[in-house]
Every structure is written in structure tokens, then in C-alpha cells.
């Protein structure tokens, strides 16, 4: 029982991080119809910025703040300078759909190399802001620590802020309208261009937050967030790629699944299982776990 509770809590911790990354990918997908592979690069760059700030000030929370702001600005910059240029140059045919995605892969490579040039390729670490010793339950330690709790609470706060913005504000309505039917949104007077940039801003901030939250439990290197990108992507697909709640549910389901397999079966099986789930979910529930139906009208 104790072991199961511990495993589930670890699963929820992992899942919160996957959810944040999935949210970042879904936000970009919804605003510009691009799968942003560069998200891992954006997050690694901002995590190194956080690392520098922690080294200089020792204040973890300040580092998170800087990373999130940097992530938001980086997202805006990529959308404004790279994506818009690509959309202008390839605006018809099959190339138009795939060119931006390939460009994000290229950007991922560029950012990783630049990070490697600046900080080197050796493993570094970010000192945890709170204890990593497991809580004690019934006199015995759990694998679940204060740091994990902070991760869950931090991710939950971001999700609550996002759901408030999306469901309750004019900006949120503009973001949703532009995502679902950009043409009708424009005819209603919404400036879809800047709204797209804001989608990338939120995504950049969420990805940056995920990067800084996950790293104290892990190591930091120019490609240490690649696995997070893959899991975030799988979580987004499980959630239907289109839905923000779907991304959260997909992330949590994936995190719990990964924790259960790691603890009860074998770490070796984690990756194959994740990809089997990815393919099964595309076959069985292509619209996502909670079925965000996309209704096409003529």
C-alpha cells in the first residue's frame, strides 16, 4: 500500500511536468498549427538561464521568474521572426504545412549547439530549493519529497492560471476563437496575428517553467530535456492535441503509467510502452482521451 501510494505520487509529479510540456505543445499547435520541436531547445536555454541566476543569487524563485519571462520572450521572438517569415515564404501546398515543423527541428539543433558552446556539454545540476528527502508515512519513508510536492503545486498553479485566462477572459476567448476558426475570428474583429504570438508566449512560459521544475530532480545538459519533449508530445497526443484539459489529463495518465511500469515492471519497458500507448491512442482515440470533438462545418 505504502509502495503504491509512493509510486502514484511520483507518477503525479512526473505527470505534472509532462502536462506542462504538453500544454506548451498544444498551445502552439492550436495557435499556428505547428508541432514545435524547438520547445525542448527553448526550455533548455531558459533552464540554463535559471541555472546561472541560481549560481549568482542562490534564489531559486527568482531563477524561475527569469526563466519564465525569458521563455515567454523567446516564444514571441520565434513566432514573430521565424514563423511569420516561413508562413510568408511558403504559403501554399504541402510544403506550407511541413516547412515550419522542419524549421522547429532545425531550431532545436541550433539552440542545443549554442547552449553547448556557451555552457559546455558536461552534466550540471540545479540545487533543489526544498528538501528531496521523502516524506514519512506510517513510520516509513516514501519516495515522495517536498521537492515533488512543490513541482505538483507549481504545475497546478500554472494550470489554474491558464484555465482562468482561457475560460474567463476576453484574451482567452480570442485565443480559443483564433485557434478553432481563424477566419471567423478575424471577421468578428479579432486581430489573429498578435493572438498567435500570445499563444507562443504562453507556450514558451509553460515550457520554461517545466524545464526549471524538472531539473533539480535530474541533471542539466544541452539535451537533458529531450525526453521531456517526447513525453510531453505523447501526453499532448493522448489528450487529442487540440485540448488544454486533454493535455493535462494525458500528462497525468502518462506520468502515473511511467511510474507504475518503472516501479513494478522494469525501467527498460518505459520507452516501448510509451510509444505503444502513443500509437494505440492514435488508433483508438484520435480525438483524445476526453474527446474534444472537432466539428467541421461546410
Amino acid at each position: 500500500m505504502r509502495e503504491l501510494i509512493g509510486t502514484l505520487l511520483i507518477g503525479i509529479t512526473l505527470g505534472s511536468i509532462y502536462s506542462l510540456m504538453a500544454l506548451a505543445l498544444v498551445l502552439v499547435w492550436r495557435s499556428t498549427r505547428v508541432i514545435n520541436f524547438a520547445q525542448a531547445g527553448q526550455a533548455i536555454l531558459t533552464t540554463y538561464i535559471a541555472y546561472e541566476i541560481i549560481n549568482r543569487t542562490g534564489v531559486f524563485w527568482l531563477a524561475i521568474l527569469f526563466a519564465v519571462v525569458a521563455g515567454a520572450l523567446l516564444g514571441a521572438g520565434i513566432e514573430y521572426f521565424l514563423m511569420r517569415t516561413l508562413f510568408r515564404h511558403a504559403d501554399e501546398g504541402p510544403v506550407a504545412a511541413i516547412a515550419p515543423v522542419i524549421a522547429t527541428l532545425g531550431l532545436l539543433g541550433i539552440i542545443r549547439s549554442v547552449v553547448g558552446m556557451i555552457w559546455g556539454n558536461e552534466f550540471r545540476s540545479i540545487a533543489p530549493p526544498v528538501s528531496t528527502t521523502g516524506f514519512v508515512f506510517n513510520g516509513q519513508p516514501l519516495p515522495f519529497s517536498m521537492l515533488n510536492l512543490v513541482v505538483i503545486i507549481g504545475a497546478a498553479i500554472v494550470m489554474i492560471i491558464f484555465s482562468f485566462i482561457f475560460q474567463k477572459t476576453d484574451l482567452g476567448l480570442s485565443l480559443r476563437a483564433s485557434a478553432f476558426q481563424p477566419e471567423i475570428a478575424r471577421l468578428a474583429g479579432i486581430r489573429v496575428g498578435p493572438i498567435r504570438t500570445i499563444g507562443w508566449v504562453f507556450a514558451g512560459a509553460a515550457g520554461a517553467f517545466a524545464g526549471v521544475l524538472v531539473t533539480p530532480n535530474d541533471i542539466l545538459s544541452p539535451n537533458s530535456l529531450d525526453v521531456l519533449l517526447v513525453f510531453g508530445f505523447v501526453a499532448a497526443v493522448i489528450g487529442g492535441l487540440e485540448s488544454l484539459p486533454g493535455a493535462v489529463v494525458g500528462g497525468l495518465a502518462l506520468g502515473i503509467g511511467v511510474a507504475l511500469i518503472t516501479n513494478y515492471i522494469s525501467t527498460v519497458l518505459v520507452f516501448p510502452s510509451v510509444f505503444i500507448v502513443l500509437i494505440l491512442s492514435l488508433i483508438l482515440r484520435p480525438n483524445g482521451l476526453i474527446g474534444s470533438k472537432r466539428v467541421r462545418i461546410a
Partner: protein
Amino acid sequence: MSSLLVSNLTVDHGAIRALSNVSFEVKQGEITAIIGANGAGKTTLLRTLSGLKSPSNGTVTWRERNILNKKPEDLVRLGISHVSEGKSVIPELSVHENLLMGGLWRRNRSDTNKAIAEAVELFPRLGERMEQSANTLSGGERQMLAIGRALVSRPKLLLLDEPSLGLAPLIIEQIFTVVQRLRKDMGMTVVLVEQNAVSALAVADTGVILNLGELIAAGDARYILADPALKSAYLGF
């Protein structure tokens, strides 16, 4: 008084000429019906007027101001709202959100709420379904919602693309009655694109007939309805 002036408008879809040298005027406070068969260029004309499509040649002025190549979102701010073909609502949003969307650009929520109340007064069925997803609406209700959304932007010129498409006669009548009220009670200028020529000309002041991208005739709707040559050649009845 002329409010919208279209001169020598030519629009191409790649190699295909969709509109060729079309000129006509829309008078302030009138309903102008644009009629013609499939492929006549009606929808292209409306999409060019609302900024969704760039023309190859010609000019369009709205209240003595050149509006060609302006973005649709800017034209909304100048008082031009377009209800595009096929019930232009966002099914993923609620009825209320669809209406609210038309007023977001104004940033004055109380004015928008008033405009929403006015739209609901015109289409009371929307009022009963405010919190439902637009996805649950019938075709007629969707069309009402699409027009309602445009009205929340408080347009001076309303562009309607085939509001009767696929709807039952009773619903079409309701929608056309509202269009007439907009003209009579609010002095709104309306450009109505229709395949349903008889119903459209019956409510319109002026008729414009398009065929294969060219203007065939423009003039008083009653005369067009009464002209046997136009009737048999282009209106199909």
C-alpha cells in the same frame, strides 16, 4: 447617397478569373441583393469586400474611403461586418461566446452586453440557448447566431453570404424579416448574396446580377424581378 462604391473590380483565383471588371454601387440604408448561379462570383465578391481576398485590379470605396487590401479585422472597426458562407459560427464555443466575440475589439463590455441583448431581441431563440455549445444548434439557429455575432459588432454595412442556404422556408422567412427590420429600424446598409433570387429580390431595394464573374445587370429590384429576359436567362424561373 452612395455608401459602397465598387469600380472595375477584378479578382483571380490563381489562373481562374473569378470576377471581371465589376462595377456597381450600394446606396446608404438599402438592401442590395447580389444574385446569380453557382460560380457567378458572388462569394468571391463578398470576400473581397470584407478583406478576406485580395483583388487583382479595381477599387472599392466605403464612405469615400479606399478600403481595398484592408484586413477584415480593421474593416470591422470601420463598420463592415461579414457573415461568411455556411453559418459562420464557431461550434466549439458557446452561443454567448460566439456573440461576445463580435464585440471583443470594442473593449467596452457594457456596450457589447447591450449589443448582445439587442441581437437576442431580434433572434429570441438564441436567448434560450446562451450557455449551450453552438455545436448543439440547428442550421437555422446557427445562421441566426452568425448574423447575431455580426450585429454585436454594430456594423453600418452588413455583408450576408447566402443566409438561406440549406434552411427550411419558414426559417428563411424569419431571417429575411430580420434583415428587413435592420434596414427599416436601424437604417443599416445590407449586401445580401443569394442563389434564392426571388426571396432576395423581394426584400431588396436594388439587385445586382452576376454571371460567370461578369456583371449582367444592376438596378431596382422590382424591375429586375419584372424583366422576363433577365428572369429566364439568369434567375432560372
